[in-house]
């Protein structure tokens, strides 16, 4: 009886050579690419990066995801592709929000104005309790990065939608 073998399991002539090199270091000829140095080579190939806008966006989103809940990642990607100058400003906006609202849950989304063809990034702070200090703290946080938006295309707005941190119920 034949057992079906998934495609990947089928030995290819080239990959089977590579497989041998993995298992027997002494078989590796010096003039061949040394498979044993591969991890270092891979590491080295990470250097001199930073030329791709898309990768910059993905790296930023990955970093943001540790601090911010990202709604609609595709919309945010699209927005940042259009307004690349914001890539430098967003971390400052998030840091400012975290500094002034350490207890808040942060949520990022793209706001599409329903009346005009305009959209911008929005960073919501969501708190368990909203008191009178919220607006003042928002203003202070915003003041820390607002000057970075001068003469740049695109916008990020720090605000609140007065929702609970989990984002379900409005207060």
């Amino acid at each position, binding site marked *: 009886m034949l057992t079906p073998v998934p495609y990947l399991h089928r030995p290819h002539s080239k990959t089977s050579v590579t497989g041998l090199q993995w298992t027997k270091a002494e078989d590796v000829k010096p003039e061949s690419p040394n498979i044993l140095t591969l991890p270092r080579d891979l590491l080295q*190939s990470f250097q*001199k990066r*930073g030329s791709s806008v898309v990768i910059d966006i993905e790296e930023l989103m990955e970093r943001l995801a540790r601090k911010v809940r990202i709604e609609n990642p595709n919309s945010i990607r699209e927005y940042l592709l259009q307004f690349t100058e914001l890539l430098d400003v967003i971390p400052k906006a998030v840091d400012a929000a975290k500094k002034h609202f350490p207890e808040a849950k942060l949520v990022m989304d793209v706001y599409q104005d329903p009346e005009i063809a305009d959209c911008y990034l929005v960073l919501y702070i969501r708190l368990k309790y909203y008191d009178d200090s919220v607006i003042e703290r928002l203003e202070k946080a915003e003041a820390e990065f607002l000057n970075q938006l001068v003469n740049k295309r695109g916008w990020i707005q720090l605000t609140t939608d007065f929702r609970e941190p989990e984002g379900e119920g409005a207060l």
Partner: protein
Amino acid sequence: MVKKYAKPPIVEAVCEFRVTPETQWDLTVPGLLYERLKGSFPQKEQRMIQEVELMQGPEGLQQQIRTSERLLFFTEDRKMLVQVGPRLLTVNALKPYPHWEGFKPRIEMAWKSLQATVEMQGLERMGLRYINHIELPGQSVELAKYFEFYPFVGQRLPQQMVSFLAVAEFSYADDRDRCRVQLTPIPGSGGKSLFMLDIDYFLARPRAVEVVDALAWVEEAHNRVEEVFEGCITDKLREMFEEVL
């Protein structure tokens, strides 16, 4: 035979030239380049870029983070840009990909402008990189249906992966060039799965290609990238990308 798709998954193509340290490069270079390129790339921006340098030191691999200023010149529609940094020139094409016939002339234009501006002593690195975003239906995807490049998971391991990063480097032209291929899932929207397939073909041996041969190398790199891309995907994806016959 080169395949063309009506819905290519390319979100960005990047052609990068790094010249050797002996090449004289001063603060006037970006401005001079802009003068030559502003007809096609009129919109100017400036960004601070952090680059990570990994070096072999006495205590193993050491990491150095360098910050440098970079000028970005965009086309009017902002779908293409040229980046100029210290001894660096890149040409980027954002989606929708203009196909090679649309991208290649911009690369040539930028490269020839640099040649006219700077007396280049050699090429440290060149790269042609294609970044693809592949959106698939559903939140659970059987990779083998769509890809021919993905991590192998033995039967004794859980078959449901929550995340992975598959990276491989392939050697070309007697190891003068390398092609780094990476596949990883990235967060998607609307209940769909999103994968990033990153194919980076680069000159791995500094100075192994003469300055006069740079554009021929780019053409060759493009052929290799196409082969690798086709090698990474199955007919199922070709159908989704809608091949143009």
